[in-house]
């Protein structure tokens, strides 16, 4: 009697599902510009076999991986190539994360501290000697402009100005604002509250929110990241249990990290809530599609926009929601830019050793933006925004900001009043 091994013997090892077609390497933004990087196939599934044989085969060049996950999007066999590489870096890098990496990774700690005396910090960080010194001492490239800190945190604004009236709405979503909105750019959070309130939806903060952890993960501060992640997921569960329809984010990387990196890299089971963590644009688009929300737009709104698809938006598969919403605005002329990595990849591009790679990766994107010459670039990722603003003369806005500007608030509110 023969057993049915053809049915049974399907590999449970994700890296063994690779059929070596190499499409991942063709799509890797780093491989194209940095010859020192072995490429996702080599660094991922190929390297994994060797590392299982002997951890000595771990190559330091894996640090050049951006963790953009474009390899995973390209893979026809569902191999989690980026995860394999990231997990190998975490498991096999012997050195402790440096002071610089720890600083860059601690977005919430730095934010909490810096917002207290934001004007001083902003001026100081923009000074040439300071930048030069940071370049020299810790290795933050002097070409970089660190994002400005806001003197009022988003959460402070929310509690003072918005929290009370959210109770008027029967439909509620929880907002995962992330470090950037909270410490650097509260205006985006304010725009979201304006937009969703007009759409008949109350916004609430989560009971506890920590940094999503992406910066800590990519800088290998795994225990710290897991600690934050557990707090976040508990808060997500609580918000949903208390009747929120979804937990929405305006930053694609925060959203992606909580959905995918938590289970894949940090080993946190989020399967019960994963589908409820989504991009604000995705949630809104679906509500409009189902007829639960209607938007009315200003007649006088005119803009030429170019949409840039962030890597993690590509991975989430949610770019079309943002694009779809922007296309609903009658006065918007939208060009969707070719899907290319901008090169910054969070803290990656701030590191001195990555500056050239980072700019080389982004060059295709920068060129295309210049050719289109839009009024604004729009994208769902804050670090893409920094990179494009640092590398081109164009201002970048989140689609939520554009929508909040484009709607006729009164008319929209009326349409959605029950």
């Amino acid at each position, binding site marked *: 009697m023969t057993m049915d*091994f053809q049915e049974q*013997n399907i*590999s449970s*090892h994700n890296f063994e599902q*690779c059929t070596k077609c190499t499409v991942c390497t063709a799509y890797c933004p780093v491989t194209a510009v940095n*010859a020192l990087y072995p490429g996702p*196939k080599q660094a991922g599934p190929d390297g994994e076999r*060797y590392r299982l044989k002997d951890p000595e*085969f771990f190559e330091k060049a894996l640090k050049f991986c951006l963790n953009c996950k474009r390899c995973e999007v390209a893979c026809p066999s569902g191999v989690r190539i980026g995860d394999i590489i990231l997990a190998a870096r975490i498991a096999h890098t012997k050195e402790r994360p440096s002071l610089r990496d720890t600083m860059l990774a601690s977005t919430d700690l730095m934010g909490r501290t810096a917002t207290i005396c934001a004007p001083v910090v902003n001026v100081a960080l923009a000074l040439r000697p300071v930048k030069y010194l940071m370049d020299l001492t810790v290795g933050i490239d002097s070409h970089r402009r660190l994002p400005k800190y806001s003197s009022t945190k988003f959460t402070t604004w929310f509690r003072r100005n918005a929290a009370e009236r959210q109770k008027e709405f029967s439909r509620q979503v929880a907002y995962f604002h992330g470090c950037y909105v909270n410490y650097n750019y509260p205006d985006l959070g304010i725009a979201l509250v304006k937009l969703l309130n007009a759409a008949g939806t109350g916004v609430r903060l989560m009971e506890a929110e920590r940094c999503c952890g992406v910066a800590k993960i990519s800088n290998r501060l795994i225990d710290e990241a897991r600690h934050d992640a557990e707090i976040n997921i508990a808060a997500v569960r609580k918000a949903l249990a208390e009747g929120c329809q979804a937990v929405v984010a305006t930053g694609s990387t925060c959203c992606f990290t909580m959905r995918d990196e938590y289970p894949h890299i940090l080993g946190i089971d989020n399967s019960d809530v994963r589908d409820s963590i989504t991009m604000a644009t995705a949630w809104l688009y679906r509500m409009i599609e189902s007829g639960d929300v209607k938007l009315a737009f200003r007649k006088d709104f005119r803009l030429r926009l170019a949409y840039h698809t962030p890597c993690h938006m590509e991975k989430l598969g949610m770019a079309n929601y943002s694009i779809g919403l922007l296309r609903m605005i009658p006065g918007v002329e939208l060009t969707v830019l070719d899907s290319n990595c901008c090169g910054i990849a969070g803290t990656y591009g701030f590191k001195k050793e990555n500056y050239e790679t980072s700019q080389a990766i982004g060059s295709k994107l920068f060129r295309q933006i210049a050719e289109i010459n839009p009024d604004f670039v729009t994208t769902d990722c804050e670090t893409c925004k920094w990179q494009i603003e640092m590398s081109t003369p164009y201002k970048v806005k989140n689609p939520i900001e554009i929508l909040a500007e484009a709607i006729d608030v009164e008319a929209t509110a009326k349409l959605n009043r029950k």
Partner: protein
Amino acid sequence: MKKIGKHYDVIVVGGGATGAGVARDCSLRGLKVLLIERFDFTAGATGRNHGLLHSGARYAVTDRESATECIKENMTLRRIASHCVEETGGLFITLPEDDLGYQKTFIDACRAAGIEAEAIDPALARRLEPSVNPALVGAVKVPDGSVDPFRLTMANVYDAKLHGADVLTYHEVTDFIRSSTRIEGVVMKDLRNNGEGISATADVTVNAAGIWGHMIAEKAGVSVKMFPAKGSLLIFGHRVNNVVINRCRKPANADILVPGDTVCVIGTTSDRVPFESVDRMEVTPEEVDVLMREGMQLAPSLATTRILRAYAGVRPLVASDDDPSGRSISRGIVCLDHASRDGLEGFITITGGKLMTYRLMAEWATDMVCKKLGRTGLKCVTAERPLPGSEQTGKQEKLRGMGAKAAAGRHGTLAADIAADKDSDRALVCECEGVTVGEVRYAIDKLNVDNLITLRRRTRMGMGTCQGQLCICRAAGLLEEKHGCVKRQLDDMRDFINERWKGMRPVAWGDAVAEAQLMAWMYAGNAALNQSDNTLIQL
């Protein structure tokens, strides 16, 4: 017919581990040697086994003599062939359905044979080797390891050549030059040159042709009754275990799991097969079943690990009494002087034994050669002198990148001879196994590489997960630099793909089928390799 002008002291027939070992031993003792192989080195049973560095424990209870030889050679190979050996250690595990009482018999027998065997707590065994069946109720630690038979054989050939041996591959012995009572030389067919006849003479001819030694002996007019016992094995896509796992019971099917280089191998089966089939070994679905079913008992995760391929070799056992499987035939060495046995001078057969005891077999055979030549003063040094690659040269290998590290594993200290200065030297040909352009060129120059299949045996190119999908076109380009013939390389690629497919076919499902199909499309589409009678991969 061409004749090789030089007269040799000894002609060695067979390019497996034994033949290579005899050629090395003879040439180190200063004899003039010709080594002849019908196809390629390691093409027979040498390249078709577990690659297990036996401690001898497996034979301790049933075959003391072999066990003693094994442990002695095991320790010798660790010294002289360090770059071919991985000192992984081994476990003999007892599962709930096995007799735990056997463990004591086993340990006593091991110790009597000089094998260190120590019973350890099952919990410790699980820590030593996390993939082991967690249900185990007993474990014994023994000095097993793994040995790469390709490297081991080539290091012997390399050293034989360094010491003046001549070497012919793709030369098939078709007849002997003889007087009434003496073998005076061989007649060969050059398989790469339209079967052109060629002859060579020597005082002594050594038959080291493994299972084919049966036929070689027949051609010489003597009879060596061999017992062809087929053994099938499966290779998995990566290393599931880092310690050899054996079953603590009387030797049976599929009870050894050996980690070797980037893979692990489960085996074997044992079945008598007819002589007519020994050139066409294929693994049957029933054998795959047995290997999987039993393999999962050793390491349950094998069930969900990708199988790369299946292969089978034929053990050159020497027939004794009636034993349908060959399991109880001794693995002991058989060294026959056909002068005293059959009245035929100048002819020796060395057979039986195991990969583990190849060196000892070579020593015995060479001792007999020297006796026949009347040069008994020549002492064997192979137990002390390290093989090329395992010498402590003090030369520092250039370990830049994964390819260089992998090459150092494969060629030992000789890896220092591999070009690695330029980017183009370090570029990868085989991505799965980290074979660089430099390594391929080195193999072509130094290791008797003639085609892609021989290149695979020397370097592991094409032995990884993709089974040649990405590397063979690159390697074919480098071979074309040598042969200067595109047509030849296209045929070479087709042969390689079909040879790989033969081993993939018995285990072709899931991702392996997808990959094979992709490979077929790539080469059919890009190199028009399906444009002849000899079509690619037939799914």
